[in-house]
C-alpha cells in the first residue's frame, strides 16, 4: 500500500507546472471563455505558452456558458480580465457600462477585414468596447446523401421532414444555435431582410413573424420525438448527428465541416448546407471589463490574439479552424458562405419568448 501512495505522490509532483522558475512574477490574466471545445482549449493553451515569455500568465477560466460571467459583471462581482462574447452578452454589458474602451488604443483597425461588417455586433455598434476575434456563419452539417443542393429553403426543409419524420431537430431556444435556426427560417420565409436589422420596437414584429409560427406549426410534429424534447445544445445534436440519429446538426463555424472530420467528431463525407439563400453571419469578440485588475496585460493578450501568427494558427484546419478577422489571404480553407446580416439584438429575446409561449409544453 505504501508503494501505491509513493507512486501517486511522485506522479502528481512530476505533473505540476513549475511556476517558480519564471523570472519575476508573471501577471495573471483571467480569461473567461467557453470551455466546451477541446480544439479551442488547445488553442488557448498554445497562446498561454506563447505569452509566458512576455511575462503574462494567461489563465483560461472555463465556463459552460459565458452568460454566467456576464451576470457576475453586471452584479459587480467578477475578477475577469478578458472575456469572449458577442450579441446579447455584449449588449447587456454595454448597457450596464461594464466594458473598457480598447479598440482605438490597440491601433489594429486598419488590419481588420472590413467586409466582415464587424463594426456592428448584432446591430449594436461596437463603439470601441470590443475587438473582433473570429467569424461565425450559421449553417447545417448534413450527411453526404441527405440534400443534393448546397442550400435549402424553409419549404424544402419542411418537405424533407415530411419524407423523413424524426430526422430533423434544432437545439431548444434560448440556446443560440436554436434561436439562429428560427432566424434563418424567418429570413427564408420573408421576402425582405432589411427589417430584421431594426429594433423590434421600430417594426411590426408580430406581423413579420406570423409566417414563421405558421411554418413551425407544420414542422413541429415532424421533428425528432415529435417536438416533445429538444437537443439541449448544438454539441448534443452534433453527437446524435454523428451517430445517425439525426440528419442535420447546426454549426456556426464555416470551417467546421472540415475540422470536425479531422478531429473524428463526425463521419467523413459530412457536407454543409445553408438554410435559406445565405448564412446568417456575425463576429465574436474579445472585451476587457472595467473591473479588470490587469487591463494592461489583458490588452497585450488581445494584441497577441490579433497578430497575424495567432490568427493564422487559429484558422488552421488541424486545430480550431476559426476564420480570421484580418485582411490576409489563407490557403486551403473552405470558402466563406454567402453572408446574410445578423438580426438586431432585440429580436433574440423576442423570438425566444414567442417560441417558448407556443411550443415547449
Amino acid at each position, binding site marked *: 500500500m505504501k508503494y501505491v501512495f509513493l507512486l501517486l505522490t511522485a506522479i*502528481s509532483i512530476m505533473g505540476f507546472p513549475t511556476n517558480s522558475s519564471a523570472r519575476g512574477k508573471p501577471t495573471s490574466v483571467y480569461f473567461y471563455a467557453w470551455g466546451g471545445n477541446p480544439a479551442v482549449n488547445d488553442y488557448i493553451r498554445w497562446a498561454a505558452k506563447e505569452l509566458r515569455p512576455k511575462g503574462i500568465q494567461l489563465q483560461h477560466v472555463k465556463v459552460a456558458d459565458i452568460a454566467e460571467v456576464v451576470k457576475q459583471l453586471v452584479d459587480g462581482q467578477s475578477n475577469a480580465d478578458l472575456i469572449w462574447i458577442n450579441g446579447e452578452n455584449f449588449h447587456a454589458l454595454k448597457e450596464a457600462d461594464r466594458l473598457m474602451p480598447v479598440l482605438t488604443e490597440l491601433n489594429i483597425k486598419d488590419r481588420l477585414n472590413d467586409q466582415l461588417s464587424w463594426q456592428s455586433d448584432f446591430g449594436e455598434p461596437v463603439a470601441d468596447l470590443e475587438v473582433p476575434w473570429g467569424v461565425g456563419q450559421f449553417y447545417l452539417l448534413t450527411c453526404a446523401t441527405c440534400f443534393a443542393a448546397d442550400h435549402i429553403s424553409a419549404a424544402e426543409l419542411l418537405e424533407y421532414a415530411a419524407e423523413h419524420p424524426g430526422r430533423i431537430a434544432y437545439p431548444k431556444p434560448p440556446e443560440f444555435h436554436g434561436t439562429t435556426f428560427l432566424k434563418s427560417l424567418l429570413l427564408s420565409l420573408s421576402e425582405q431582410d432589411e427589417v430584421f436589422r431594426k429594433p423590434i420596437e421600430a417594426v411590426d414584429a408580430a406581423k413579420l413573424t406570423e409566417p414563421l409560427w405558421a411554418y413551425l406549426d407544420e414542422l413541429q410534429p415532424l421533428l425528432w420525438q415529435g417536438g416533445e424534447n429538444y437537443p439541449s445544445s448544438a454539441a448534443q445534436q452534433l453527437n446524435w448527428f454523428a451517430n445517425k*440519429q439525426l440528419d442535420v446538426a447546426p454549426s456556426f463555424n464555416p470551417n467546421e465541416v472540415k475540422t470536425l472530420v479531422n478531429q473524428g467528431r463526425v463521419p467523413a463525407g459530412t457536407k454543409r448546407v445553408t438554410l435559406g439563400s445565405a448564412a446568417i453571419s456575425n463576429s465574436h469578440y474579445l472585451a476587457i471589463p472595467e473591473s479588470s485588475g490587469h487591463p494592461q496585460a489583458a490588452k497585450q493578450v488581445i494584441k497577441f490574439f490579433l497578430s497575424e501568427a495567432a490568427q493564422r494558427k487559429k484558422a488552421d484546419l488541424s486545430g480550431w479552424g476559426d476564420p480570421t478577422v484580418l485582411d490576409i489571404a489563407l490557403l486551403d480553407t473552405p470558402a466563406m458562405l454567402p453572408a446574410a446580416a445578423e438580426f438586431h439584438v432585440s429580436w433574440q429575446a423576442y423570438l425566444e419568448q414567442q417560441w417558448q409561449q407556443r411550443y415547449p409544453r
Partner: protein
Amino acid sequence: MATTLPPLAMHRLVRLVIALMWLIIPLGVVVWHNSTTPFGGALAGALSALGDSAWLTLLVTLTTSALVLIAALAGAGGKHLNATWASFIAVPHVAFAIGLLWLISPSGWLVRVVDALLPMWQGPIQSSWLSVKSTFTLMVVLILKELPFLLLMAQANAQHMPIQRWQQQAQALGYSRRRFWWLIVVPALLKRIRLPLYIIAIYTVSVVDIPLLVGPNAPALLAHEVYQLNWQFTDDTQALVSWGSLFLVVIAVVSVLLLRGLEWVLQRWLGYLALTGKRVRAAKSSVKRMTTPWFWVLLAMSVFISLLLQSGQQSWFYPSLWPQGWQWSRWLTEWPYIAPLLYNTWILAALSATLAWLSAIALLEVQAQGQQHQLHGGWLAMLMIPQLVLVLGWQQTIGPDNGFIGLLWSHTVFCFPYAYLTLHGAYHAYPRRWLWQARSLGYGPWAAWFKVLVPMLKRPLALAWAMAFSISVAQYLPTQWLAPVTHPTLTTEAVSIASGGDWRLGSVYALAQWASVWIVFMLALWGTRARN
C-alpha cells in the same frame, strides 16, 4: 480538557461548535440573504412559467424514490458492503450516465449488436422510451445511481437487527423466508432507512448535471430550469429564479411528507397482511444469501469499459461495434493539465473529508456518552435543502471569487452529514463495555478510545472518511460558483468539457475522477480488512 470543564458542559460545547460550523452559520447566511432580497414578480406569473417543471419534478422524485425504496428493501438481505458497492458508489454521476447511454441509447452498443446480427434491419431505432433524452431515461439513470446508496444503508441497518433470532421464531411459526422478510424485517427496516431515503429524494429534487444531460427539456425539471435561468440577467428572470428556489424547497418538503405517508401506508398494509396472512406448514429452510451482486458488477464493468474505450478512440460512429481509430496519446498530452487538477481535487477532498470526519466522530462520541442512540435528523439538515438554493445564497452573499477557506467550508458542510450518517450505525452498535473495561484496567479515556475502540471500528471509520472524500470530489456547484478561478477541480473541468459534448476527452476526466474516489475506497477496504 476534562479537568477544566465538567463533562456535560464539554458535550454541549462540542455540539454547539459543530452545529455552528456546519449548520447554523451556512444556513444563516442563506436565510439572511433570502430574507433581505426583495421578491420580484407575482406568484401567478412564476407558476405559469415554472408550474409544469414543478409538477414534473415532484412526479420524478416520488416515482424514483418509491422504486428505489422497494428495490432496496427487497435487496437488503444481500451481502454486506464489499468492493463492488464501493466501486459503484464511486462512479461520478455524469460519467455513469454517459457510460449507460453508450450501452442502451438508440444508437448505443446494444442496438449496434442487433444491427450487426440483423442485416435486414435499418437502425438506429427511433424510440422515445430509452431515448438519449427523456423523463424515462432520466429515471432509469437516477434509480440505478441512487439504489446502491440506499441498499448500503439498508444492509448496514439490517446488520444491527437480530434477524437470525427473529427468523428462527418466524420459521417455527411457519412463515416462508420471503414472507418473514417482508412482514417482519421490512417494517422494522423501513423506519431505520427513513433519513437516507429522504436524502435521495432531496437529491433528486435538486440534481442538475444529470437532467442537463439526459433529462427532458420541454418542460425541464425545476432545478435544471432554475440553473439555466440563473445565467440570464434580466430582472424578470431573476424574479423567476427566486420563485424557483422557493418552489424547490416546497417540493422538497412535500416529497418528504408524501414519502412519510408512503411509509405509513406500507406499515399498515404489511401489518394487515401479517395478521391475516396464511402460513405454510413446513417452511423451507432459509435460502443462502446471494453472494455476488452480478447485476451491479456487470453494470459497473460496462460503464468502466465504455469510458475507457471512449477515452482512447479517435472516431467511433454508428454502426461500428469497435472504434474505427485509436488515439491513446490523448492521455499523455492531457496529463500536464490533469495533474494540477488532481492535486486541487485531492487536497480539497482530503481536508474537507478530514474536517467532516473528525466532527462526525466527535459528535457521535458525545452522543454515545450521553446514551443518545437515535439518528438525529437535524444534523442532516443541509442534505434536506436543495443544494442549488444553498449555494446560490452563499454566492450572492460572499461573491463568486473566494479563497480556499470559503471553498473548504462549503465542501465540509456537505461532507459532514454523509460522514455522520455512514458512521452512525456502527458507532452506536459498538459495545461500550469494552471501553469501561479498558478504563478499569487503568487506561485513560483517550488511551482507551484510541487503543480499544479505534482498532475495533477501523473499517467503518475508514469508510466514513472515504465516503466524505467522495462527496467532496463530486461537488460541482459549490466549486464552480464560489471559487472557479482559484480552485478548478476535476469535476468543474469535466462539466465544462461535457458542455461541448466531446466524450473522448470527457471520458479522460471522468476516469480520473472515478479513479480518485475508487482508490480511496479500496485503500479503506483493503487497509482495514480482517487479518486471520
